[in-house]
């Protein structure tokens, strides 16, 4: 409101009471805007133009306000404006004392209008570049005029932060190759004539593959796939009296996981979840007895896993801890990857 008072005083010569002024006095900004909209080209007094400008900003009609402020500048300070634009472009020193306060206020209005327009964008757009260019021009002019420097700096910071936020929200396609040490446990049954015995198979190996997906600065959605090669030892659980043991039984397979992560630091480190489907093939030898045979579980397993990644530029370490659905077993992975 101080702005209004200042501008009203500066532009007060010849001002007269009007329907517009009455509406403004009553803080009926909508009516002020309606009056202006009915006849925008009417020859308003400078005081009325200030009322209209303020009302437009209050109502969020920033582009109309820009037009109005430009109109005010052109009507009152055309030469001065051309000079300062030219001087700023040439990098010349500006004598802020040589410019009237009212003009500085109009520049401040324009800075605010463009700033608020930029802040209204919720996603990246080519239109932002144009508005940002104008914003930067008025920011530069106000800095040269040493007008409300602290406020201008703070507003600049907010605009920069908003532009960065918009940039951060943009999803980009990403892909990487990875190599992991993995370990998983499965179960089998040693079926006997008298009694069945549970067997535990503890495997370890490597899983080589990669992932592709989309990520922005906050989230990562992707599909990860890798080929497993490893081996494991199998025996009856320690509590069982039955003796069955095999070492280094080869195991092959593949793992496919859709996943989603939340990126928690500017380094790109992230935590998330994956839903791997793991196919493994591993053949256990039947015991040399007609009374026993091996019954292996389904080769396909469904897992829910927690995933974390520690990013160091394009390289990353990753760890995965998964638990099989409807089973006690777990799947682990620890490895290295590189974004391309």
């Amino acid at each position, binding site marked *: 409101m101080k702005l209004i008072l200042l501008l009203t005083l500066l532009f007060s010569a010849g001002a007269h009471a009007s329907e517009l002024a009455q509406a403004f006095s009553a803080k009926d900004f909508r009516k002020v805007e309606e009056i202006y909209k009915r006849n925008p080209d009417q020859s308003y007094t400078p005081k009325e133009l200030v009322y209209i400008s303020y009302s437009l900003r209050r109502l969020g009609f920033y582009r109309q306000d820009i037009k109005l402020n430009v109109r005010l500048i052109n009507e009152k300070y055309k030469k001065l404006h051309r000079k300062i634009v030219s001087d700023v472009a040439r990098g010349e020193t500006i004598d802020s004392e040589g410019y009237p306060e009212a003009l500085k206020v109009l520049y401040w209005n324009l800075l605010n209008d463009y700033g608020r327009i930029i802040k209204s964008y919720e996603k990246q757009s080519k239109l932002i570049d144009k508005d940002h260019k104008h914003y930067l021009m008025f920011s530069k002019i106000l800095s040269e005029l040493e007008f409300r420097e602290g406020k201008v700096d703070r507003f600049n910071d907010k605009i920069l932060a908003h532009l960065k936020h918009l940039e951060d929200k943009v999803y980009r396609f990403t892909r990487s190759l990875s190599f992991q040490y993995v*370990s998983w*446990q499965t179960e089998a049954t040693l079926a006997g004539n008298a009694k069945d015995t549970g*067997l*535990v*198979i*503890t495997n*370890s190996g490597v899983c080589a593959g990669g992932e592709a997906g989309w990520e922005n600065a906050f989230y990562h959605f992707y599909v990860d796939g890798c080929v497993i090669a490893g081996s*494991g*030892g*199998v*025996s009856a*659980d*320690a509590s069982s009296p039955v003796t069955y*043991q095999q*070492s*280094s039984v080869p195991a092959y397979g593949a793992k496919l996981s859709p996943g989603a992560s*939340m990126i*928690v*630091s*500017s*380094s790109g*480190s*992230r*935590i998330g979840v994956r839903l791997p489907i793991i196919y493994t093939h591993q053949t256990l030898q039947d015991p040399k007895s007609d009374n026993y045979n091996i019954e292996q579980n389904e080769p396909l397993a469904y897992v829910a896993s*927690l995933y*974390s990644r*520690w*990013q160091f530029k394009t390289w990353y*370490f990753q*760890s995965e*801890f998964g638990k099989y659905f409807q089973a*006690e*077993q*777990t799947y*682990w992975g*620890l490895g290295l990857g590189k974004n391309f």
Partner: protein
Amino acid sequence: MKPLILVFVLLLSPAAWSYTQFIGHGYTSCLNCHYNPSGGGPLNDYGRVVSATLISSGALYPKVWNEERVADSSGFFFRKPTQNWFRSQINYRGFQLVQNPGSTRSEQKRWINMQADARAIVKFGENDRFVGVANFGYSPVPENLKGEEPEWRSREHYLGYRVTPKVGIYAGLMDKVFGIKVIEHIAFSRQAPEVMQNDQTHGVLAHYLGESWEAFAHGFAGNLTQDEDLRMKGGSVSVERTAFGVHRLGASVMSSRNQYQELLSYSTHARLNLKEGSAVLTEVGQVQRKTDNGSDDRTMRYGLLQTYLRPTRGLYFLSNIEYFKRDTTESDYTVRWGPGVQFFPAQRLELRFDAYNTRSFSPDTSSKDSWMYLVQTHIWL
């Protein structure tokens, strides 16, 4: 089974309050926040402010409180100290331990009061040049040792003097300086070299804190409250160097012996700053053990990889991966893997969940993994 559980949980509790992962907030040296330069034990005034502001979630604070107001309330019983020479602290930590949760094997649950400490600190001179720290508290004793070991004991008591801001000398009962002082004393990296819950020792610690180097030399004579034959006497050296301005790389060596065994431990470690509070801690080491009669001579090997990822203020997601080989000449080894969550809803309160899935690898046998989880509450005043 109960004594076994208690032996196990004794290994779980932190001897002192030491969060080395806060390198993720830019704190490379423990001296920033603790009176003890190797970390753990009472927080200094700055440490309490950091704990109240940077570490704890602000969600429960009154909305009208700014950071300065929160910092002012970080003292003992929410008060701003009115003098500069005395500080006191009280700590409680308890947890629910669940073994074999939801398993076909028997599930076991119990609540453990793990820690109840009262701490007093006297300090004088510029930048706390002279400090005296006493920390007395409760520590549960396994059933089989009841009556032989006290449940209430001095966890630490020492005097410290900073000769210069870079050099300090500390003498008294303290944790041995070795490797990364992670909070989990269940960690193989703390078990193998015997730097756990109740392994404090009387000794003299020299500390150097330079621009990019930090070094400790610790000479110790064992815990003088123990019987003479049990006291582990020796010394340790630990060195860390700042790398790329924000990370720390280090190495430690420690030699100690009593009448029954001799340990030579050596390790290398890294503390990596992943920015905005997230960090990775990693350590690999070996411990050569010689027994007086040669019956249990062996070299143990361990590895630790611990991650703290911080999605928002006050909240940390953990990933804990450990490796342990009881005897390097044998093929058997154990890997422990587990996720966890650590939450500081407000200053003076920590809630934590840790799951542990332990797998044994052996060419001869294959056994089911063991499972366990802990739900911890930690309160300090």
